[in-house]
């Protein structure tokens, strides 16, 4: 979520005018996302849901310390962090591979904030809070794969890209982290993390690609 300053009062101070600001947390897709149907009429072939208010921390091993980082991850999450392009679900987080010796921790409700993770990874990994630096888009529906095929060169066929598969890749020249989540209503769910400042651009590209199938657009606070 990006923050925008909204002046809500102006206080007169000895002749000078000083604006006070309140910081309004809002999604990078706040302007572009319009809840409801889009494109072709009838039953929507593609469902787009922006996930808001998540916590995201990048964990990167320090030189020569990948083993220690993996041990620290196991201690924290109870499962092994991914060492290949995969997304691993834990009890209350998802660990997503983002490159060699690095992964993302996606969670919500403050369960795995950077402050809480830092002590466990002290010395073995560098942590970086990405919570407000990315937008998270969940894509499903009967035509989700057909739509994504226009944007991505990754083979998303279920025989190749099963639940838990992940990829660090590009769509429309924009870096994304893509992974397949748990199926919903018997349908594949593709999750996409994109840099906040590129989110609006990619969102419009996705809408263009999805329009012919009919789209239903929404947002949610649930991972």
């Amino acid at each position: 979520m990006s923050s925008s300053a909204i002046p809500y009062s102006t206080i007169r101070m000895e002749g000078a005018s000083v604006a006070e600001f309140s910081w309004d947390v809002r999604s990078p897709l706040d302007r572009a996302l319009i809840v409801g149907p889009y494109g072709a009429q009838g039953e929507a072939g593609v469902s787009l849901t922006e996930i808001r208010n998540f916590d995201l921390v990048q964990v990167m091993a320090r030189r020569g310390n990948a083993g220690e980082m993996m041990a620290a991850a196991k201690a924290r999450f109870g499962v092994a962090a991914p060492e290949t392009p995969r997304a691993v679900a834990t009890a209350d987080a998802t660990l997503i591979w983002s490159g060699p010796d690095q992964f993302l921790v996606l969670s919500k409700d403050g369960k795995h904030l950077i402050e809480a993770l830092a002590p466990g990874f002290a010395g073995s990994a560098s942590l970086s809070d990405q919570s407000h630096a990315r937008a998270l888009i969940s894509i499903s529906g009967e035509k989700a794969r057909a739509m994504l095929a226009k944007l991505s060169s990754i083979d998303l066929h279920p025989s190749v890209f099963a639940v838990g598969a992940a990829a660090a890749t590009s769509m429309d020249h924009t870096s994304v982290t893509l992974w397949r989540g748990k199926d919903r209503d018997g349908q594949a769910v593709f999750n996409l993390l994109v840099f906040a400042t590129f989110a609006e651009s990619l969102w419009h590209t996705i809408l263009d690609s999805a329009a012919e199938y009919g789209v239903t657009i929404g947002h949610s606070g649930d991972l």
Partner: protein
Amino acid sequence: MRITCPFCGERELGEFTYLGDAKPQRPAADAGEDAVYDYVYLRDNIAGVMSEHWYHGGGCRAWLKVTRNTLTHEISAVEAAAGAGAAKVGA
């Protein structure tokens, strides 16, 4: 052209950026001006098999060493460059 990233698998060329010849090695501090000049400026124009640095910036952001035939574009080997994957290479 596609490059098989050792970390990500086979990817399209658009995800990669070309740096150039992977052969030149930084000379020692006392190597002298000629060696530094050679390292910074002089490159072989290879028609054939060449060792190159590529960056998977549109993917895992690792530096790769690619062995490519400049006449046929055939890639015979791809490996992580020194330092790619903090823990495994060049540690």
